[in-house]
Each structure stands twice: as structure tokens, then as C-alpha cells.
């Protein structure tokens, strides 16, 4: 049988506010356990939540960025369940009236086409604490620093049909929240987490199959792997005539398998009801428009602009705009150097390659945008050749200084003095009489041989354009 894969994602994005969603405790990552859990975060008797307006603003920004309807009236509900990382035994969330309604984004498919993925809704809620399973005499330790960190849960339509599409969707959402500055999107620190609902159905069938929910998959790579192994698992079950159980499963990246989380299964009755400690959140059309006015240029718009105004190819424009930091880096270099194509080639080439190799993000790239501009300007003004520039870049990346310092120190300045180049050419011609004869008898391709020798003899410093021109003159029969 031919199976069709159906995937929907729930992405939890930590909103980058300074204080928590319902308390004045700090949201900074990595503090000593429970030092950022105040009376409200601990759910002590008598405490009450007060809503952080910045969480609202950031949620609305996201909604506007995905073309969604912003609900002028939204309500916080309590989701009741007992778990030690949930100190009140309920999570404040939004079930019935979320802040963000239906929207959509477009993802790029491998064949170069685009596909529209629906965003069902996005709602605000509070993050839970963390359970630490290191042995405390066989007990679990609870750290509530994270409890109350604002989250935006973005729920997609079940519109994705492969793990690759799911990853493309996730990357796009990641890119948007980073552009908007509503989240740092840091996946290692858990600022951007994903649950995937995966099911299979016979091709052509309209009705969905039974789904499994994969919990907490925290990297793009793992999302793809987790979904693929889950697809295989379900296919094995269905092919052998079995039925898939609706359940929550955890992806084990070491074993590359998913396994059932029975602990989350028992008696799932969350008894949602409106939180009586909080009042309805009301935002006017004018306030929404004021937030819209603050939206930065988003990746799709930026990409279009790079193609239209800077003349970049679609491929380059897309690659440059997926990450906001990279796009900002690019724009700084492009403006300083005045060569859109050259800047794109360098950034997508050497800079990206070095960053990837070293696991470094553009924001903290050891060669910052100003420094790279300094280097490229020296190529533009013929101080060095493109080839030498790569050598200089290596040195810059290794922290040896800026371009001019390195060029000076290593004596890499290009030879543009015609006399000096002629001297080298004369020597090369004198040493290769056979090739000279062949060239003069019409073997034009041999020009490369002469250029190569001249460049080699000049240790790469001769200006290649000049070399070419002078060689043509001198080799004329």
C-alpha cells in the first residue's frame, strides 16, 4: 500500500522578555537552581499572577508576521495536571480564546516550488520548571527557575507531508521569530522546542490516521530523524496489519528510536477553565496597528529586495536571508564595499564555511562585518588579489588582526608596477621557448600556462589582470 505521511507541529518559543510572564523574576538562563523562582513562580499559597505586557506585544508581532488574525480579546485558561515541574499543578495557557488566530507561512520545497503551511493558532502560556534526574538518593530534584518563562505555542495545520517539509517549516518559524526579535531561538538552551504529531494514511484517503505525538525534539536534525523513524515505526505496524496507538512518544537520539511515555498518558483530563486570577486581555485595532508599524523587514521581503534591487540570484538571496544575523552582516558588508555579488559570494562561501566548521554563529563571527568589508575593499582597489584575500581571511579568522595589518605584516600587497611584472614575464618567456612557439603558432589556450608561471614566480602577488594583458602583448609574434 502507498502511505501518505501527515505531520503537524507544535512549536514552543520562549519569548525573550526580561521578566517572567506572570512575575517579576528574571528569565536569564543558567542561574543556580531556584534562585530565579519567586513566590509567584513557586505557587506559594496566596500568590497571584500579573501579566507581562511585553509577552503580549511579542506574541502579536509574531501573529502579524505570519499574516494571522490577532484576537482583540483573548483569555488565559488553567490546564490542570499534577507534575512536580508544574508548581501550581496547573499551567496558565490559552485554550478557548488564543491571542493569535489563523495565519500561514510559505516554505521552500526541494524542487524549487513553494508550499503554504497553515498556522492554526498561537497562544501564550507559562513554561514549566525542570526535573533533574541525577541521583539525589533515588529522588528527582526540581528547579523552578524556568517556571513562568513566557512561551508562545505555535500550532500548525497538519499540512506537512514529509520530515523534510517539517524541518523547512520549523526553520522558517525559527527564522521569523529571530527576525522579529521575539525570541533568541536558542535551541541548546531550550528557547525553541518542537513537538510533532505524526500519522500515516493510505494515499487518497481523506480521513487522518491515528497520530503519535513526539515530544520535545530540540534540533532541526533530530526533528527530521525523529519523524523519519516514527514514520518507519508506524509503517511497520500498519503494513503488518496492526493499529497505531494514540500516545505521546519520546525521541531517543542516541538509539535513534521513539518510545512511549506512559507517564504522560494516565488520565489526561486537563479540566481547562478560565483562570479567575486573570482578566481578559484586550488589545485594540489601533494598538495592533502600532505594533505592526514596528515590525522589521521579514525574510521573504528581504529576499525579494535582494533579488530586485541588488541583483542577487534567488538561491543566494534566500541563503542570505534565512538568518537575521547573517542578513544584517551581509547588508553591512554590501553597503561598505558596494558590490552586492562579491559580498554575497564571500559570505556564503568562505565566511559561512568557516563558521559552520567551527560551529560559530554570525553574531559572534571572529571576522565581523566591518573587518570583512576592510578586506574586500582591498580586493576592490587591487591591493590584493582574490586569491591572496582568502589567505588574509584565514589569518583574520585566526585572530591575527585586520586586513591591512596582515597584508602589511606578510607583505602580501599586490604587484602592480608594470616594470616589475614585465621582468618576471620576460624570465618566464626566456625559460619556456617551446611553449612560446606553440602559442605563437595558434595554441591560445597556453596563455593559462604562462599566467600560472608568472603568478607562481610572483608568489601570487602580481595583479592577474595586468599579467594577462602584458603577456598578450609580449607573446605577440
Amino acid at each position, binding site marked *: 500500500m502507498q502511505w501518505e505521511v501527515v505531520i503537524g507541529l507544535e512549536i514552543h518559543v520562549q519569548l525573550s522578555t526580561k521578566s517572567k510572564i506572570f512575575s517579576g523574576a528574571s528569565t536569564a538562563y543558567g542561574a543556580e537552581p531556584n534562585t530565579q523562582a519567586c*513566590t509567584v513562580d513557586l505557587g506559594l499559597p496566596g500568590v497571584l499572577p500579573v501579566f507581562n*505586557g511585553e509577552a503580549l506585544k511579542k506574541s502579536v508581532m509574531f501573529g502579524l508576521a505570519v499574516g494571522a488574525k490577532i484576537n482583540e480579546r483573548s483569555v488565559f485558561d488553567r490546564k490542570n495536571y499534577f507534575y512536580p515541574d508544574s508548581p501550581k499543578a496547573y499551567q496558565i495557557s490559552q485554550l478557548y480564546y488564543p491571542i493569535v488566530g489563523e495565519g500561514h507561512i510559505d516554505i521552500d520545497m526541494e524542487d524549487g516550488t513553494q508550499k503554504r503551511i497553515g498556522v492554526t493558532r498561537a497562544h501564550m502560556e507559562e513554561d514549566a520548571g525542570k526535573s533533574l534526574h541525577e541521583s539525589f538518593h533515588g*529522588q528527582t530534584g526540581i528547579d523552578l527557575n524556568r517556571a513562568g518563562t513566557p512561551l508562545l505555542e505555535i500550532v500548525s495545520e497538519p499540512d506537512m507531508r514529509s520530515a523534510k517539509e517539517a524541518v523547512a517549516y520549523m526553520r522558517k518559524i525559527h527564522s521569523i521569530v529571530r527576525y522579529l526579535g521575539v525570541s533568541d531561538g536558542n535551541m541548546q538552551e531550550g528557547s525553541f522546542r518542537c513537538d510533532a504529531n505524526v500519522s500515516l494514511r493510505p494515499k487518497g484517503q481523506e480521513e487522518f490516521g491515528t497520530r503519535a505525538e513526539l515530544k520535545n525534539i530540540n534540533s532541526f536534525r533530530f526533528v527530521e530523524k525523529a519523524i523519519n523513524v516514527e514514520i518507519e515505526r508506524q509503517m511497520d505496524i500498519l503494513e503488518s496489519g496492526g493499529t497505531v496507538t494514540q500516545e505521546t512518544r519520546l525521541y531517543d537520539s542516541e538509539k535513534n528510536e521513539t518510545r512511549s511515555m506512559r507517564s504522560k498518558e494516565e488520565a489526561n483530563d486537563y479540566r481547562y477553565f478560565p483562570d479567575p486570577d486573570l482578566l481578559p486581555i484586550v488589545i485594540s485595532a489601533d494598538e495592533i496597528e502600532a505594533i505592526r508599524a514596528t515590525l522589521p523587514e521579514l525574510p521573504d521581503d528581504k529576499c525579494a529586495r535582494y533579488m530586485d534591487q541588488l541583483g542577487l540570484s534567488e538561491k543566494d538571496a534566500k541563503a542570505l536571508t534565512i538568518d537575521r544575523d547573517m542578513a544584517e552582516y551581509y547588508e553591512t558588508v554590501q553597503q561598505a564595499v558596494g558590490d552586492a555579488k562579491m559580498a554575497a559570494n564571500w559570505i556564503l562561501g568562505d565566511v559561512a564555511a568557516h563558521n559552520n566548521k567551527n560551529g560559530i554563529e554570525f553574531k559572534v563571527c571572529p571576522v565581523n562585518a566591518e573587518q570583512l568589508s576592510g578586506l574586500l575593499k582591498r580586493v576592490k582597489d587591487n591591493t590584493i588579489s582574490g586569491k591572496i584575500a582568502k589567505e588574509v581571511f584565514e589569518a583574520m579568522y585566526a585572530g591575527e588582526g585586520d586586513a591591512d595589518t596582515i597584508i602589511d605584516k606578510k607583505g602580501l600587497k599586490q604587484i602592480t608596477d608594470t616594470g616589475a611584472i614585465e621582468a618576471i614575464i620576460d624570465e618566464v618567456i626566456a625559460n619556456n621557448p617551446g611553449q612560446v612557439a606553440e602559442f605563437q603558432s595558434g595554441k591560445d589556450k597556453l596563455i593559462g600556462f604562462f599566467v600560472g608561471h608568472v603568478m607562481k614566480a610572483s608568489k601570487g602577488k602580481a595583479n592577474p589582470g595586468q599579467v594577462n594583458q602584458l603577456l598578450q602583448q609580449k607573446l605577440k609574434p
Partner: protein
Amino acid sequence: MSTLDKSDVEKIAFLARLGIDEQDIPEYATNLSNILDMVEQLDSVDTDGVKPMAHPLDAVQRLRADVVTESNDRENLQSHAPEVEQGLYLVPRVVE
């Protein structure tokens, strides 16, 4: 008429993580059934088109400025906690 039996009470008690003595269950079942009968008087009230009322005053949520106002008070907050080690609250092992 709602009549709750023993297994209903047990199910609700588990949802609420509430220990109840076995011998008290019948009495809870009776009392709960009576209370439910009492509240079911509302069934006969016509509430078509009535907007549910969550709060006595039709107020809206005030927004707090995004400012950190709390500082580390762990020692005070944990001074009477049942079981704490290295700043963590301890619970029986959680299996995922």
C-alpha cells in the same frame, strides 16, 4: 439526576490526587450525588444567549511592565520546604 458510584468517586479522587479512606467512599458518593442534584436545578433555567460571566466586574487585564523586580530569596523561600537539597526541591523519582 446524577448518581455517582464508588468507581466515579475513585476516578475523580485520582484526578484530584486526593487520598480517601475506602470506608468513606460510600458517604462521599452520597453527598456528592446530593450536591449534584442540588446544582442541577440550573438545568431548567433558560440561558440561551446569556454571555458566561467569569468576573463580577467587566474589567480587563492590566499589563505589567517588563521589569525584573524580584531577586534571589531562595534561602527564605526554602526554609520551611519539606525536602530540599543543593537548592532543589526533592520528589520521588520521576520516570519518563
